[in-house]
Each structure stands twice: as C-alpha cells, then as structure tokens.
C-alpha cells in the first residue's frame, strides 16, 4: 500500500460525536462532587466524636477493671454485686433518657453507633463510681 493511500484512509476515519451539552454535564458532575466533598467535615467530626468516646470508654474500662480487682480483693463478691444492682435502676433510667433524646434528634443509623458509645460510656462511669464507693466504704466505712 502506498503511503498516500494509507494517509488518506487514516485521515478519513470517522469518529462518533459527543452530544451537545456535554460540557454542562461534566460541570454538573463536578458541582455534585463538590457538594459531596463539603459534607466531608461533618464525617470527620462524627469520626472524631466516635474515636474520642471510644477512647474514654477504653480508659475507663481499664481503670474500672483495675478498681474492680482491687475492690474484690478488699471486699467480698456479694457486697460488690449488691452495690451495683442497688444502683441499676438509676443507671438504666439515664441510659434510656440519653438514647431517647438521641433518636429524636438524629433519625439515622449513626445514632445507634453513637448511642452505643454513650451507653458504654455511662456504664464505664457508673462502674467507676460504684467501684470508687466500694473502695471508699472499705477504707473509711
């Protein structure tokens, strides 16, 4: 095949065309993407809260376990669980109030995740208080 024939064939290749308004379609996709990105800080904030509450929960759990072991070694098992159950009604009331408020404020699933952290946080605080009171009773009572 001659070079000129090849050149003619190559230059004569037909291509499909883009529909009119394609640039508008691209710009719409860009703006939509920007809106999605703007919601990014909210997600970061949500994650920060989650990690913070998880961290607090973790620290309190470790501290709680430490106190529990100490208390159990100082008092008996029955005295220890007796104190926890005597405070349980107040504790349950607090949890249901917090979760109820959260469900009203945020109707989506993140509430469950957040609610669980709150729940664990309250449990940890409660455990800390109970254990602390046990220690108090044991030392000063």
């Amino acid at each position, binding site marked *: *095949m001659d*070079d000129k024939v*090849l*050149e003619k*064939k*190559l*230059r004569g*290749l*037909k*291509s*499909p*065309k*883009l*529909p009119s308004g*394609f*640039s*508008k*379609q*691209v*710009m719409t*996709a*860009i*703006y939509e*993407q*920007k809106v999605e990105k703007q919601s990014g800080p909210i997600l970061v904030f949500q994650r920060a809260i989650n990690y913070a509450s998880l961290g607090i929960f973790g620290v309190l759990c470790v501290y709680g376990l430490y106190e529990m072991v100490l208390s159990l070694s100082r008092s008996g098992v029955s005295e220890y669980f007796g104190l926890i159950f005597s405070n349980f009604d107040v504790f349950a009331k607090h949890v249901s109030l917090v979760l109820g408020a959260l469900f009203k404020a945020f109707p989506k699933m993140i509430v469950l995740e957040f609610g669980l952290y709150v729940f664990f946080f309250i449990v940890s605080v409660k455990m800390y208080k109970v254990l602390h009171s046990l220690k108090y009773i044991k030392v000063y009572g």
Partner: protein
Amino acid sequence: MEKEKALTDEQIIALVIDGKVDRFEELVQRYQNKIFRFVYQKVLNSDDAMELTQEVFLKVFNSLKKFDIKRKFSPWIYKIALNETYNFIKKRSRGQLVHVEDEYVENMVKTENELLRDEYDRSEEDEVIRKTINELPEKYQGVIYYFYLEEMSLKEVGEILGIKVGSVKTRLTRGRRMLKEKLLTHGIT
C-alpha cells in the same frame, strides 16, 4: 473597544485553582472532542468513550492543584486520559465494571446513542484500521494517532509525547511500515 484575548489553558487553570470553578467549562469545551476521540480510539465504543471522557475531566479537575502551571496543559490531559483508559480497559477485561441501573439515566443514554449512531455510520474497514492501530506497539500508536487522526504537526506530536521532532519522524516511518504490513494481513490494501 479592544476584543478580549482568549486565555491560555494554563491561565484558565490558574483561575480555576483561584476558586473560579465555572471557568473550567472553557477547558472542557476546548478539549472534550479531542479527549473523546482519543479514548474512543482505544475503547472503540461510543458509550464507554463518553463515560470515560467525563471521568477524565473529573480526574483533571481533582488533580489541578498538582499541575505545574509552567508546563503545557495538553500533554498532561492526554496522559491522564491514557491512564484512565488503561484502567478502564483493565477493569473491563476483569469484568469489574459496574453498570448504571438507574432507568432514567439508561433511557437518556439510549436516546443520545441513537442520535450518535444516526450521525456516525462506521464502516467495517474503519473498524479494522482502528483495531490494527491498537495492535501496534504503544510508541507507534501515539505518533500515528496524533499525526494522522488528530492531524497535529510533528512539533505538536513531539510536545504531547515529550520526544524530539526527529524521533517523531522515525517513529512515524516505522509505525507506518508496521501498520501497512498488519493491514495487509487483515486484507486491507
């Protein structure tokens, strides 16, 4: 009143980076057909090429801050288009592409495609030639495509590919020879 001079690609990018996002549309309008034809040559399907062209512009927009304003924009956008196309082809060959299921979008695309097909009557020979170009080694595909199909000058081809004009000429000669041999085996004389 003096007519306002058209801004260069690089000046438009500076404006977009500065927050004037709507100016990006000018770049899209300048390059949309070039990029569409470029990716079409690789994927040989107008639906895929259209989707891919949009992906390329989104990628360009998201990477604008990485672009060195002292360099030329056109080689950069072609490089992005080439990378996106190869990623697309890889995904397609692995069967990983997700198809849009939204009925409205599908119908819209169908209508657009019917219009495209009306305007574009692709001959069998065209298809064979395009496929044969894609069978060439990468370095010859580029020069053949830019020089013949896009009708760029030797200098422009060199700029896009980052090679000297002399190398463009050498590649063109070798690429042409290989292409002719391959076309002969496909029965095109």
